[in-house]
């Protein structure tokens, strides 16, 4: 890697399934790229985290959001809409990470300006590879907007 050691990328994972969150954490660690990950389990918490409301007053602004779509309370599309319509947050890349391959979900996500849409593979090797690649791509290969990270 030709870049000078970049600051670790800070991921926010919005995922209601604790086991899936655990799998993402494990796979991201395997990417051997410096990163930190915060996990919230529903849309309401995600918005509180991004607004730095209690109990997230000291939460750092994430560099990348990994967002599930089917979430309790406020669903993923609504969280996406919130991020992209909030000027201070709208430049954060949002990667939709979901089990849904439905066209309607994909269309809606892109129309709300999702930066990427990834369907969780059921197969372990592919899941593992995917999350590692996501970690590598967004931490190393992708250049963030100026003034961030």
């Amino acid at each position, binding site marked *: 890697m030709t870049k000078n050691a970049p600051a670790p990328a800070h991921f926010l994972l919005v995922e209601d399934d604790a086991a899936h969150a655990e799998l993402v954490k494990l796979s991201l660690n395997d990417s051997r790229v410096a990163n930190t990950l915060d996990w919230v*389990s*529903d849309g309401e918490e995600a918005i509180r985290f991004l607004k730095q409301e209690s109990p997230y007053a000291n939460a750092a602004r994430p560099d990348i959001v990994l967002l599930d779509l089917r979430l309790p309370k406020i669903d993923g599309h609504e969280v996406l809409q919130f991020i992209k319509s909030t000027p201070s947050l709208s430049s954060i890349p949002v990667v939709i990470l979901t*089990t849904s391959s439905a066209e309607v979900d994909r269309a809606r996500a892109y129309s709300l300006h999702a930066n990427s849409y990834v369907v969780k593979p059921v197969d372990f090797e592919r899941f593992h590879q995917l999350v590692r690649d996501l970690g590598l791509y967004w931490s190393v290969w992708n250049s963030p907007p100026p003034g961030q990270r």
Partner: protein
Amino acid sequence: MSESARRTSAGPEFADFADGGLQQLLENVRDYAVYRLDPEGRVCSWNAGAQAIKGYSAEEVLGKPYDLFFTDEDRRSGEPRIGLDRALASGRCEREGWRVRKGGSRFYAVAILTPIRSPSGAHLGFAKVTRDITQQHEMQQTLQRLNAELADRNRELEAFVYTASHELKSPLVTILGFLGYLRRDAAEARYDRVSEFADHMSEAASRMRQSIDDLLQLSRVGRLLGESVPVDLDALLRDLVSVHTPEIVEHRIRTDIATPLPTVRGDALRLRQLLDNLLINAIKYGSGSPSPVITFAAHRVNDEMQISVTDNGKGIPPQYLERVFRLFERLDRDGDGTGVGLTLCRRIVETHGGRMWAESPASGGARFIMTFPLDRIVASGGRP
């Protein structure tokens, strides 16, 4: 005989036929009202069909304006005059709509108005042909309604398949994911995470089994009802309360049947499932209150019977009042439900011809209301 000779010899007979025969023919047509109007729209001839369709005899209508056959709304909006003007302007006017018989009953008609002119072009009046197509109209309406229902069902089915496949795929990701990690760990002779990973897998497998059971149950509820029998909801509820006595006592919940529930004609098993689900929900979400109360009540509202189940727990935020009925929708991640209970309840109520919704009463807590059409109420509540 040549062609022209035959036509010549037919001439006088045809004129005869046109004068008398055609008149006779028209007078006797029964499926169509065929009559004439003068230039101002007053009836000036009447046939058997007109009498059959509109109910008036010739004596009753001759000389009367044809406005008589229109509905009050159409008369007010000038429909009779519009028909005459259009026929005059374009040589023909065809209209469809509700018309009125003698006595006020309505029928759906298709009517054609044609102006009659003398050979010199003077306007003599109008010919009017009306057919009663009420049956076709109603069949068409029914067909349209059925088509719309079918389209609704298809959309519902699509959403169902999509949601169900998501719900079943999600635990598979967990199971195969942790299985993958277990294999990797085993290859490195690492065993410290075996039990943690196995727990995740087993939880996912149980969730999947529960989802499959729920889906099967839901698909059965969607089908036609079992035999409709009178079900005494009041007795049923008291029985369910006694079944759930351990939880009710544990959480010190007071159950209150404010007004006795009615006896409803329906599927006994499904109605039990309905009340049971609502009672379990109210116990689960109402027990957070310092002095939990679950209230059941039945009221007649207009042409339906409303039954309500109210708890005084933490309630449902207004933006989720409709979402709680969606399949696999869970407001509370920590709850042990799969998000099928209320979907099931609503479907049971709907298969009984009613509706179901949730409200947030001003006093706090959550209220679930279901309605039953009055023709399903065998007896309003009342305990001996």
